[in-house]
């Protein structure tokens, strides 16, 4: 969620149960402004909190000219001192998925080790391979995956300008209440994966400037998103059941929207059993 609107948007997502301490909120207001100046971001968002056993990580995300591609993540323990995370590359993702198990420890230099049995050639020999990764890498990869699989925007909130940059749509006035009650007014904020598989008939109805992202309704399993009106039915809340703790809010008929993740950073693999 935008750093500028932090003080009122935190109340809107409070239905999920986690809110920020007043102390943290004021610290964030100060430090995010300083962060924006230092790193020359266009916008700074408070991405959320990943809870570790000993300590919690506060995550901030800075956006550059292209909102979809220029993203930088930073973490902090006390909302004041921020450390830059490396961008998540594919070999890093593989390394983390093999090595990291269990919950986050809370210590950025913690090393996860895992021995994997690998078959050597065609024989029955089994080789043990030790895979290691640090918690910092795990953090970077987790944030990347959560953004990839569960970040949401309302349809029309971002537009693609002729250069191909994705930018905030300043003319977005919000969805109407009936539009907001339908799940197909929301899009994934990531490089589109299922859009290319659509048929020509469906593609012809889309508006190229705002419909360049995947729909939420194309997600598998179907019940992955929980759509509710909260806070005396004024705010629309979308909760992701795959990453428990991801909450998206939108106030209909206003341009306010945003998402925040407060949770333990573990994917909910049992989703299919639980629906």
């Amino acid at each position, binding site marked *: 969620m935008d750093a500028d609107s932090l003080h009122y948007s935190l109340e809107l997502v*409070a239905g999920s149960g986690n809110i920020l301490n007043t102390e943290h909120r004021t610290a964030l207001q100060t430090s995010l402004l300083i962060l924006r100046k230092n790193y020359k971001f266009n916008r700074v968002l408070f991405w959320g909190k990943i809870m570790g056993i000993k300590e919690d990580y506060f995550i901030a995300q800075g956006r550059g000219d292209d909102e979809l591609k220029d993203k930088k993540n930073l973490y902090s323990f006390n909302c004041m001192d921020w450390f830059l995370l490396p961008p998540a590359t594919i070999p890093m993702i593989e390394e983390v998925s093999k090595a990291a198990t269990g919950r986050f420890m809370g210590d950025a230099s913690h090393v996860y080790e895992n021995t994997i049995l690998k078959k050597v050639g065609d024989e029955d020999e089994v080789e043990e391979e030790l895979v290691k990764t640090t918690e910092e890498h795990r953090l970077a990869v987790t944030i990347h995956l959560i953004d990839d699989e569960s970040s949401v925007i309302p349809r029309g909130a971002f537009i693609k300008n002729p250069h191909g940059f994705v930018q905030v749509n300043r003319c977005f006035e919000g969805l109407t209440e009936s539009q907001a009650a339908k799940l197909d007014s929301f899009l994934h904020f990531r490089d589109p994966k299922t859009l290319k598989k659509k048929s020509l008939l469906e593609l012809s109805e889309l508006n190229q400037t705002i419909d360049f992202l995947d729909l939420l309704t194309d997600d598998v399993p179907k019940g992955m998103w929980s759509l509710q009106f909260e*806070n005396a039915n004024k705010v629309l809340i979308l909760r992701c059941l795959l990453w428990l703790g991801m909450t998206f809010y939108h106030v209909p008929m206003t341009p306010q929207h945003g998402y925040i993740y407060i949770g333990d950073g573990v994917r909910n693999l049992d989703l299919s059993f639980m629906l």
Partner: protein
Amino acid sequence: MDEHRDRSGDKMLKSSAAFKTFLMKNSQKSNMNLYDHLTRLLLKVMDEQPNDAVDIFEDLSYDVKRGLFEDTKNRLRDLPHTTLAELLAEQQRLLFTQQEDTEHEDELVESPLPNINEIGFYLEQAGVGLGREEMQRIFLALKQLVDSQPLILHCRLWGKILGTQSNYIVAEVEFKDWDNENEKSDQAAEEEQNEARESEENEMDQLPQSTYKPPPVVPKEPMGTGSNKNVYYVCKEPGLPWVKLPSVTPAQITVARQIRKFFTGRLDSPIKSYPPFPGNEANYLRAQIARISAGTHVSPQGFFHVGEEEGEEEDEAPRDSYEVNPDFDGVPVSEMVLSLSMWVHHVQHILKQGRCSWINLAVKPEEDQNEEGEAEETEEEPDEPEPEVGPPLLTPLSQDAEMFNTPPWSTKISSTLTSQHAVAVLRSNLWPGAYAYACGKKFENIYIGWGLKYTGQGYSPPLPPPPQKEYPSEPEVTEALDPTVEEEQVLEDALEEQQAAPEEMENTDEEEEEEEEQELDND
């Protein structure tokens, strides 16, 4: 000369009349004519006297044309939509009405209503909560609940359970004395069901009875003890009516331990799972609430102590009651954060059986009373099930077992910058969403989450049991090979021989009889 002028004047008049008629010709498309349009336009310019009329002349012309369409406006108007927010607001308005018949004496008596504003403040320091306005609405809804039920001893906000379609706000209530009416109505319902089943059986022909005997059902704990100590009320949004949840049975707890399901938000939706859950979502919700309370309700050590009257109790009976300790001074926050032994559980642990107090199912109460002595002896035999023992009440958290390589609790102080006035926060890692705070003499527990336990890497559902044997194997039912033709032939020959032998005997007997008859006849 005049004639010339007249003729040219006439010509001009004629041409102007012709031109005027031309102007007044109605256009085929819009049934308007230029003459009327120009008249109206010039009248408009005269009335409004705009600056630079010549520059905006075309716009003026459009405006006049547009203005002509008012008469064909639709007489129907859109109905104003009632938004969902407006519907809920109507119901939540009732929260804010003040009862006029409250006696002022009630202010002196301790009200069972908790001070949610204060609790909300401390929870906010801990980083947990539902937002100030929502807490205020919940506060008023709890007040409505307390006012509507006269026998409440204690009332607490237990927390909020999130669901896929809507959420539940849960309130925990302890009654002063247990109405047996509730139990009677449940028993009456059960009896009616049994009678219905029996009458059905009598009407139909008796079908072959199966020899399967299901394992004995563990009886549920009576109201007011163990896992049924408190009654829980839920509501969807503050302002909507509170619904009472049924009491929990041990079978429901054992199955709830094996399944993993999201709540949908509707109390009557069925739970489709394996092993099949005995009940619907209301029962599942109650079972999870019981498990969460037993696992995560903690208090600072010393806040509660076991009643002094029970100092001479036997070692076997578990302690199941506690009292508020009047001498509790409060523990400094830094100590509470550093060591887990300063926190204790104040809710009884639920045993594997599904109850808090163990019941021996192997002993049949219908047997003769002579066997009571034997029954006591059999408890000590290793064949009989051993009594399950859980950790006694008020055990410190440092004795909680670590599961899945994660410590079960994480402690934190709410603020490092102003630690003199900070709050100690305890977070459960086994039940994500369970928090407890303590500050001086005050403490509180709350749960806001999905109602699911942390199960490590993945959940694997229990396997189905091996298939039962269909029937006992008896020689009548076992298959045997049919005899071949040669064997049958041999058997037939043997039989014929056997028959031939007695037949000869019979024949000789018959012959003798015949001879006797003949002789008699002859005589």
